[in-house]
């Protein structure tokens, strides 16, 4: 019996390895050194995502005749099964869609919303903030939007049914796969939370212990959930048995979500945010996704600076970048929130004039003494986000494009798994400000501010680059660096993604350290220290800076190039 079980386990591991390693096209094998830059190649259609099995799911749907939207939703669902710690039906996100025939860009906002009973002081007890309630508690859970958003996109822009596009995800959850070192290390890091919120019998633990690299991870409960949603439709999640299980799980942990909160959730289709950089156009998500706005701000600043002259990873470049981020964070804290509820000076914030103002504030030789916000008028607030998310890109044969970022916020979200369902609930309420007077304070049915920034970059009117990343507040910094690495410093796509990253911010007007991957040369760091930057060294390839995925669309007939971040388990495939 034991022998039979062992043989079955070996077979399943072998099958999963086979599935994950089956070439998706002739040029799509990753190099032995995962960090060595490698552009995946395809001639007609491509998917890049944070797990090989999710990529395979998307490519499978494309090959079956699905369009980019069908493939994106198949990939997004497959990520729930293959990379469950980063996103899933218990979370939310944003997608940018480009419809080639209509030459139209649109955005679907499926960001989570606060429950109706949410209010600005909900994380305070006797006047004192309870940080744990924001992250590992029933109050941390916002109303999930993923399924509603996926379903909306499929019905309006897709060609296949939810039942059809969920099949690969169901198969992955059912069959399982060998856990990667990324999965294992994140599982270990979040062990505490999983034990506390889901117990030793959690489906995200291996008999009460974290999964080790190579262990088989299966999630039959998730397979069953997805199968039921596929069969009964999303009302099963928002109004049916699953809704009851979600509310029970959240309330058991002290949360305030109700059946009505779930039943009333609606995704929004909104106008994209547009900006320019030289002769490039950036089409991205509007608020409450702030990543796009900040990318446009940063690019408008760098449009006016001699980057090529300074050089790639030069002290001047990094200094200006860090200082620009610190001023941007001051304005972010003062103005940003959910545009459905507050007035935000978006046009001013992304204007070229504002960029010039920020440049004038930067001392070329040294770090500023403080970072006051720009005066546009609305009130102050502070905001802090840390997030771990996932991004996928799809280009289909017709030239339709999806750039989709989704999340359950922190790795393994709130750690709450509704009984027997196999999926994790988000802790996105933590993206609201801690300050009850902030425009981004928690409030009834509000969207928390997000740092996501899925985008499509156009060059001379044609799609050129599809890009996005997880990484909390590092998202817009990392994405801007990748764009500049390509268009200014001439790096290839994956070279640009794998290149050393850096990040800084300001908090309440005060300078914070300059976080850098330790591959940045010591001589550059010395010069930055001389300018007054306090350096905080991170790992050579650190997940802290995100896990970007991108597709470069080469001029007519030259095909597609995919870049997938080795800071996570990024992969690409196509045909």
């Amino acid at each position, binding site marked *: 019996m034991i022998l039979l079980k062992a043989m079955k386990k070996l077979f399943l591991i072998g099958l999963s390895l086979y599935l994950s390693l089956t070439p998706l096209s002739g040029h799509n094998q990753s190099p032995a050194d995962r960090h060595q830059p490698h552009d995946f190649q395809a001639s007609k259609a491509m998917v890049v995502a944070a797990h090989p099995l999710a990529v395979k799911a998307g490519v499978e749907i494309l090959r079956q005749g699905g369009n980019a939207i069908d493939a994106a939703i198949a990939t997004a669902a497959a990520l729930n099964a293959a990379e469950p710690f980063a996103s899933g039906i218990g979370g939310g996100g944003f997608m940018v869609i480009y419809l080639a025939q209509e030459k139209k860009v649109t955005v679907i906002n499926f960001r989570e919303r606060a429950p109706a009973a949410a209010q600005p002081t909900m994380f305070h007890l006797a006047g004192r903030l309870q940080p744990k309630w924001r992250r590992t508690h029933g109050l941390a859970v916002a109303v999930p939007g993923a399924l509603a958003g996926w379903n909306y996109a499929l019905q309006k822009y897709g060609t296949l049914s939810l039942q059809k596009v969920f099949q690969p995800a169901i198969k992955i959850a059912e069959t399982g796969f060998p856990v990667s070192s990324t999965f294992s290390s994140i599982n270990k890091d979040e*062990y505490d939370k999983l*034990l506390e919120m889901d117990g030793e019998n959690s489906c995200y633990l291996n008999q009460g212990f974290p999964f080790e690299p190579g262990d088989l991870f299966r999630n039959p409960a998730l397979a069953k959930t997805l199968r039921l949603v596929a069969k009964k439709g999303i009302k099963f999640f928002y109004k049916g048995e699953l809704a009851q299980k979600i509310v029970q799980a959240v309330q058991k942990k002290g949360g305030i979500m109700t059946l009505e909160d779930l039943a009333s959730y609606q995704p929004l289709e909104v106008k994209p945010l547009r900006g320019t950089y030289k002769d490039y156009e950036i089409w991205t998500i509007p608020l409450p996704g702030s990543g796009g706005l900040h990318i446009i701000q940063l690019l408008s600043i760098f449009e006016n600076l001699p980057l090529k002259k300074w050089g790639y990873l030069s002290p001047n470049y990094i200094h200006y970048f860090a200082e620009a981020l610190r001023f941007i964070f001051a304005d972010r804290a003062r103005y940003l929130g959910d545009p459905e509820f507050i007035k935000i000076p978006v046009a001013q914030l992304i204007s070229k004039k504002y960029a010039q103002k920020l440049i004038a504030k930067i001392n070329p030789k040294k770090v500023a003494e403080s970072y006051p916000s720009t005066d546009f008028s609305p009130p102050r607030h502070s905001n802090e986000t840390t997030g771990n998310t996932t991004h996928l890109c799809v280009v289909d044969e017709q030239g339709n494009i999806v750039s989709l970022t989704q999340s359950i916020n922190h790795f393994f979200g709130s750690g709450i798994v509704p009984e027997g369902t196999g999926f994790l609930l988000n802790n996105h309420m933590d993206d609201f400000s801690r300050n009850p007077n902030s425009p981004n304070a928690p409030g009834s049915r509000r969207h928390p501010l997000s740092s996501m920034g899925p985008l499509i970059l156009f060059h001379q009117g044609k799609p050129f680059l599809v890009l996005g990343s997880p990484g909390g507040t590092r998202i817009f910094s990392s994405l801007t660096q990748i764009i500049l690495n390509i268009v200014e410093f001439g790096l290839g796509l994956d070279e640009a993604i794998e290149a050393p990253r850096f990040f800084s911010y300001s908090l309440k007007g005060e300078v914070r350290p300059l976080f850098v991957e330790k591959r940045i040369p010591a001589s550059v760091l010395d010069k930055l220290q001389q300018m007054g930057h306090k350096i905080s060294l991170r790992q050579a390839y650190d997940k802290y800076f995100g896990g970007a995925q991108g597709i470069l669309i080469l001029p007519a007939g030259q095909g597609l190039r995919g870049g997938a971040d080795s800071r996570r388990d990024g992969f690409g495939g196509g045909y």
Partner: protein
Amino acid sequence: MPQQSFKKSNLRLSLLFLGSVLILGLISTTYSQSNLPKFSPPVLITSAGQSAEVQLAAVIAKRAGVDATLVKMATPDNLGENKTLILVLGASLKGLGAAGLDMNEEINRVKTLLAACESRNIPIICLHLGGQSRRGELSDKIINLFLPQADLALVVRSGNQDELFTKICQTNNIPLILLDRPSQAVVNFKEIFQLNSPLP
């Protein structure tokens, strides 16, 4: 027919050989385990570096039936009546950040704790359960600083690929148990704390 009996006798010989190897292996393991130092509960479990593996140590102790208390940032005051200290090695920037500590503060805390253990003759068991992913500059600093003071070390094998633990343990005459995965430590805990069966 003769060929078949040749095969059968070969098979018997092979089985006999394999059996002998297994029995010898079992005897040698038992022998080496019975030579391990023994420790007494109650136990204080703490971290050196604030990695999440400290929680793993608590679950291992629970499953082995060891009376243990987990205090992630233990000080000498937490030693109380405890008779053994389990120190879980491994630095985590996330963990340090959550605890509001920097590396120097963490190192000073552990130094003070170990000095108190020494003055009270409390033995120390060092664990490294995070494997390869819990190695690196910061973790190695902690390992080099504190492992030499251990009376026993239990280490997940993938974290010892460069034999850092083997070398430190050999130099300091510390018994070292290498584990394939953290859960195996349950058996070792039962052995070193001389517990025959786990708590229900």
